[in-house]
């Protein structure tokens, strides 16, 4: 067993492969592992020992499908025991094929129905700002999840109002049925967001984009994967 203090990406990858969460998705969906790992390892101000600290940064896994990577990172970082990964989606398990925030330590939202995380993230960013916290809100969506119109309500509003404590990561594995001609990032930049597109396997590039200051408005990182 690894220690949460010195867990590595390889440890998290091994945990993700251990936790095939849904027999309907036999291929382990670990392409979101890169950005989630970089966030929890190098970006987010979250203490697994105090997961309810009101001024913590928030990570919202909007794309609740295939949460193996998310669960693996939470386990690697010590939010819950690794052994929980061995019974995912069993009737008594706290870990399901879609995360439930009332059951999973460290999960900020209950997800599964696409298109809810970004509007929730807008409200969370507004609320944390209203409470005087400098917390950052990171929302991970899939490129196909962007099909849901609710995302575009949020993208337009957050850009127009300069919601600078909001950051979206788009896990782009080119799975949107009708694609995004001109690129996913353009949907954000045209609405006033700062946006970068990076290779999701390049953790330094991910880190640079996720920590690039954006004082005047929200920021999007499109993490492209060919996996």
């Amino acid at each position, binding site marked *: 067993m690894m220690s949460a203090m010195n867990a590595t990406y390889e440890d998290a990858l091994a945990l993700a492969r251990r936790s095939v969460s849904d027999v309907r998705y036999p291929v382990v969906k670990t392409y979101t592992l890169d950005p989630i790992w970089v966030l929890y390892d190098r970006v987010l101000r979250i203490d697994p020992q105090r997961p309810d600290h009101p001024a913590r940064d928030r990570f919202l896994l909007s794309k609740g499908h295939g949460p193996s990577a998310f669960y693996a990172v939470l386990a690697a970082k010590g939010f819950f025991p690794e052994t929980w990964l061995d019974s995912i989606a069993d009737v008594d398990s706290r870990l399901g094929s879609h995360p439930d925030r009332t059951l999973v330590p460290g999960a900020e939202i209950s997800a599964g129905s696409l298109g809810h995380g970004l*509007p*929730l993230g807008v*409200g969370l960013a*507004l609320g944390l*700002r209203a409470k005087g916290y400098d917390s950052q809100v990171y929302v991970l969506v899939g490129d196909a999840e962007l099909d849901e119109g609710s995302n575009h309500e949020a993208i337009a509003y957050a850009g127009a109002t300069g919601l600078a404590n909001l950051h979206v990561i788009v896990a782009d594995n080119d799975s949107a049925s009708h694609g995004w001609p001109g690129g996913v990032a353009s949907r954000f930049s045209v609405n006033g967001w700062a946006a970068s597109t990076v290779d999701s396997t390049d953790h330094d590039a991910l880190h640079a984009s996720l920590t690039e200051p954006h004082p005047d408005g929200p920021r999007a990182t499109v993490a492209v994967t060919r996996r």
Partner: protein
Amino acid sequence: MTTEPKTMREAWTEHTSALLDVNPFLALVLADISDDYFTEAAAKHPGRVVNVGIREQLLVGTAGGLALAGLRPMAHTYAPFLVERAFEQVKLDFGHQGTSGVLVSVGASYDWAEGSFTHFSPRDVALFDTLPGWRVFVPGHADEVPALLDSAVDSTEGAYVRLSLRHNAAAHAGADGDLVVLREGSRATVIAVGPLLDNTLAATEGLDVTVAYTNTPRPLDTAGLRDLASRTGNTVVLVEPYLEGTSAAVASEALADRPLRLLSVGVGRAELRRYGTAADHEHLHGLDAQGIAARLKAFL
């Protein structure tokens, strides 16, 4: 010169603006509707009064996110857009997250008759019955609104506050949810919800029935209902300003151990494709005094 009585929307605006001044955890989310009522409050509390534009999914999702941040969110727009268009957000962005919020609508079942079907929301209360944990307030007068808002805001439960331009001549209840008995009789217990009380009182003039009022259909005062029904032969009439039969299941369950005789009076399902006034639609649905009286007499 006569002064127009204060509308429920005006009462809500005034009281919510006052609550925003004293409650640092209250946040109001708008979607353009009623934005002009809150110009002053938005200037005073720019971080806690936000208008997301004509975006109802974002309206409710943002309110859910504010709740996750530890604030008490209140979201508002026209009833069909708040409850029906964004119903999955209502379902998933509060209770499923382990949080709650306050939703305040205007429009009710046929307030803007000229606008017709797109702006009618007779189904809203029935939809809340499909979800756990929501209280539903249907004030019958502007003066009932402040206490109901206090109860909704000062709570960890979800609350839906259904404002209407239809109203009774006077306020009749506070926010304790108890049925208020206005007339006593022996042949039936007639429960009138919110703005339909005055029509119900007029319809029951001279009839030997009990008339009781509530502005809190959820949770319905079932203890009070059982008590009143026991004195009227377990014959009950529900008069509701939204979809007919909405509370029939609640009444049936409350009186499951007795031979209940129940009449539901409310807004019909049919799309009438008519314009006119709200009073016209009250008549078309049989919810004016004449219509309610006819239903009652046939039932009794």
